[in-house]
């Protein structure tokens, strides 16, 4: 299970992607954010999803994590079509997501946000009637933040009072703590400091080593090339190129994002300048 | 004030009070001509008796029954010398009256009593039911022979006075087979709303011949709607209460007759009897404050004038 089976296996049938999107269409009013987008990530693989602003990356992520239903197309988990009616379905499949808008509850504390929807209850009777073990959650939160090198005033501080980077750290911590199969990170380090960014990349590495899959959206090309096994490029709501990270340069990626380089046959058929993928 | 206990006289606990008196006078609600006249009567009696303070306080809507219960309770706590009030609801206020009596605060009711009404609590009021039944008769008289469509503008469904008048009127109507009640709408004691529903009733019932409107705002709104529709005179209005514009409407021929109570007398009797009871131990006895049917014919009579323009220069004679 390594980066090596990237491109091939996406076509082959033997090794099914953990999570796959096929022909996703998503419209908002008269804006077509996704126009038949494809995507796949395999077990133990870090795939970077890149593309220009407004290319549709975050929209695709929301579809993949059940936060927004697609209008057309299908999602497959381990090769089986699944209907993600809500984020609960995706979470049940072990998919955790850091959304670009963070999706934290401003009035709630750092600890409450980290455990949102997964609160620890007290043992015994108090737990049965739903009482929270706030202490345990505070402790757990402090630990998780420590691992990411994050400092917040207190774990009981409401999220509204945090700095931009602190907020993002909480969102990232929450996802990596709970994921069991796939972690989707939509620009997870955009607001992070140097140290915290490093930590997140370390976590991604360790997640891969543990056999998990990671989807990373990022505009930081050096970061993408450093951490990803494969890169999928979106443009105007479609996947237009796929690369193995080891075999590509920043310039290639930029070319693909601006439409100068296309590897996907459908795109080529539509008249785009067809060039073979690097390799 | 100095409270001095002289164990004599037959009233209540057999105590009388010397010196200044503080009386709570509570209407069903504030904000209508009717209750202001009650207040004027109460203050007149207090002034004539001397050394009596009237605490005038009430809830904002006649439907706020619980608010009135609380208010009476607060006056008992404040330990006023006596309470004179009009019950928004006969059953709901009965415990409040009893509680006042138990705390040694005598009570007199005006306009509307409670059920049950303790023996020692008098009632100075009009018979709403009878008055409304008579309104039906007046309407029948004004319309004469033949079949006629009539409408009823009530004010606040679910409030007790409203219920009594509606029931009285419909009972009265049942005596007149030629009158056909084709519409019944509430004004919520709001003139604009009264005008609106009346306008719509007139639209829906082009043959409407008569209207009974059951209180001040209802009458005013109904009269305006009829006037605006250009049907003054064609549609007979029997009203209730005697706000200045109602009287003016009567004179102008917009309104055929008004059922008029004697709110001044209610306030006056309530306070006067309470003061006598407190100072001299006289037991308080109920009295019908009377209802007058005012028409263009009798409006300038002395008797009606006394009701319409009450004044403290010429206070009503007790009983």
């Amino acid at each position, binding site marked *: 299970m390594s980066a090596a089976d990237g491109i091939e296996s996406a076509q082959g049938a033997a090794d099914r992607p953990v999570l796959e999107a096929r022909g996703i269409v998503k419209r908002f009013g008269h804006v077509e954010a996704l126009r038949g987008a494809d995507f796949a990530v395999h077990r133990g693989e870090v795939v970077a999803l890149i593309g220009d602003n407004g290319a549709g990356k975050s929209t695709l992520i929301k579809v993949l994590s059940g936060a927004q239903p697609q209008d057309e197309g299908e999602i497959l988990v381990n090769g089986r079509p699944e209907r993600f009616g809500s984020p609960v379905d995706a979470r049940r499949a072990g998919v955790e997501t850091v959304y670009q808008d963070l999706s934290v509850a401003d009035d709630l504390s750092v600890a409450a946000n980290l455990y949102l929807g997964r609160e620890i209850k007290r043992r015994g009777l108090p737990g049965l009637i739903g009482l929270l073990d706030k202490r345990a959650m505070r402790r757990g939160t402090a630990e998780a933040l420590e691992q990411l090198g994050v400092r917040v005033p207190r774990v009981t501080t409401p999220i509204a009072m945090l700095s931009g980077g602190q907020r993002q750290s909480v969102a990232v911590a929450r996802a990596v703590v*709970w994921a069991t199969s796939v972690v989707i990170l939509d620009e997870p380090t955009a607001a992070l400091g140097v*140290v915290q960014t490093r930590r997140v990349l370390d976590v991604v590495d360790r997640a891969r080593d543990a056999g998990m899959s990671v989807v990373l959206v990022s505009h930081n090309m050096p970061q993408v090339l450093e951490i990803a096994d494969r890169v999928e490029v979106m443009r105007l709501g479609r996947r237009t190129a796929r690369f193995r990270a080891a075999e590509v340069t920043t310039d290639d990626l930029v070319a693909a994002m601006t439409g100068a380089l296309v590897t996907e046959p459908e795109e080529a058929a539509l008249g785009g300048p067809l060039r073979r993928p690097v390799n | 004030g100095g409270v001095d206990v002289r164990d004599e006289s037959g009233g209540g606990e057999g105590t009388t009070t010397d010196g200044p008196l503080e009386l709570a006078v509570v209407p069903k609600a504030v904000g209508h001509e009717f209750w202001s006249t009650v207040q004027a009567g109460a203050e007149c009696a207090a002034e004539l008796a001397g050394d009596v303070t009237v605490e005038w306080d009430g809830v904002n809507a006649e*439907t706020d029954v619980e608010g009135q219960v609380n208010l009476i309770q607060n006056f008992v*706590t404040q330990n006023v010398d006596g309470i004179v009030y009009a019950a928004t609801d006969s*059953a709901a206020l009965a415990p409040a009256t009893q509680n006042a009596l138990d705390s040694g605060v005598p009570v007199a009711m005006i306009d509307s009593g409670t059920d049950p009404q303790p023996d020692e609590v008098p009632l100075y009021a009009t018979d709403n039911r009878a008055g409304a039944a008579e309104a039906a008769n007046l309407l029948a008289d004004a319309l004469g022979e033949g079949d006629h469509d009539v409408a009823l503008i009530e004010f606040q469904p679910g409030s007790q006075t409203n219920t009594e008048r509606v029931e009285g009127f419909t009972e009265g109507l049942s005596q007149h087979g030629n009158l056909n009640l084709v519409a019944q709408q509430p004004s919520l004691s709001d003139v604009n709303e009264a005008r609106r529903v009346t306008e719509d009733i007139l639209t829906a019932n082009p043959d409407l011949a008569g209207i009974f409107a059951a209180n001040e705002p209802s009458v005013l709104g109904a009269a305006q709607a009829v006037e605006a529709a250009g049907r003054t005179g064609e549609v007979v209005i029997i009203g209730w209460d005697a706000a200045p514009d109602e009287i003016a409407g009567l004179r102008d021929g917009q309104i055929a007759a008004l059922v008029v109570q004697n709110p001044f007398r209610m306030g006056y009797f309530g306070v006067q009897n309470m003061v006598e009871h407190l100072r001299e131990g006289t037991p308080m006895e109920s009295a019908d404050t009377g209802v007058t049917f005012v028409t263009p014919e009798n409006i300038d009579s002395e008797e009606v004038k006394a009701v319409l323009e009450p004044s403290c220069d010429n206070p009503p004679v007790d009983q």
Partner: protein
Amino acid sequence: MFPVSRSLRSDPPETTVTGMESPTGPRDRLRAWLREHLSYAVSEFTAATALVVLFIALSLASPHFLTADNLFNIGSQTAVIAIIAVAQTMIIITKGIDLSVGSVAALAGVVGAIVVRDLGFSVWEATVVAIGVGAAAGLVNGLLVASARLPPFIATLGMMSAGRGLVFIITGAVGVYSLPESFQLLGNGEIAGIPFAIVITAVVALAAGFLLSQSRFGQHVYAMGSNLEAARRAGIPVRRNLTAVYVLAGALVGLGGMVAASRVSSGQPNYGIGLELDVIAAAVIGGASLFGGQGRIAGTLIGAFLIALVRNGSVLLGINIHYQQVIVGLIIWAAVYFDQYRRRRLEARG
């Protein structure tokens, strides 16, 4: 206990930064702890200050104020508003609003009275029925908000109108009378010398406060009001929870309606007109935000009693009825301004 995924558990952190503030010594830490907890206490106190000030002022101004009777009176008089304000607070925290509380309380009250009068139910059975009626109305509100996604203002405005209509249809617009003495238990009865209505209010407030601040459900209520989409994405069953809040609130409104009916020993079809403003005001004066995510039961109780004190006080002091309303307005402004001002100072200056 803390289910950290393997990827996080691997090696220990390299640096010593923690989830706690500044790298300072134990004394500093103690000071920080004290400052934090004191400031909470002060903030609680702040919300109550207006109440306390008013309380002292009234004690001085009227000899009748500070008596057991009067205080019990105030307690009983405020019971219904307080119970329903607790319900309203839960809904406001979810970023909702319930305009139908007056109509639903009236509906529950008249139904409770009717089953006693006509079906011979005991007062306890009637109370259960009233709570059920309230819960049913809450369920409709909840489904309209959570499933049909109507704005809460619209959903509950419709219920306000429809509920009142139902009351009138059921009662024929005539109060429900001739109830047995026992019907007055909830409103006028006593337990060990304490008015039953006060006991009910205390139990309701404690239970609701506990639920909101200590339970998982409560946590989710705040989360939904703070960011509904985030709550949904966090896997919270928002539809179900939101509906549950309206049902629970409805049940409390039903209970409140029954206490109100019991207090006046009759079912009043016009009960509760305008009640929604009183209870929303109590919640907002107590610190709840109509924009969701914020609000506490303790604050709401303070708000409810503040309003009650103003009313009680102006009667005791014999203030002219017309001036009373002006004074109520001024006091509402002053109380909230004072509270806001101190909160802001607290937040801005530490």
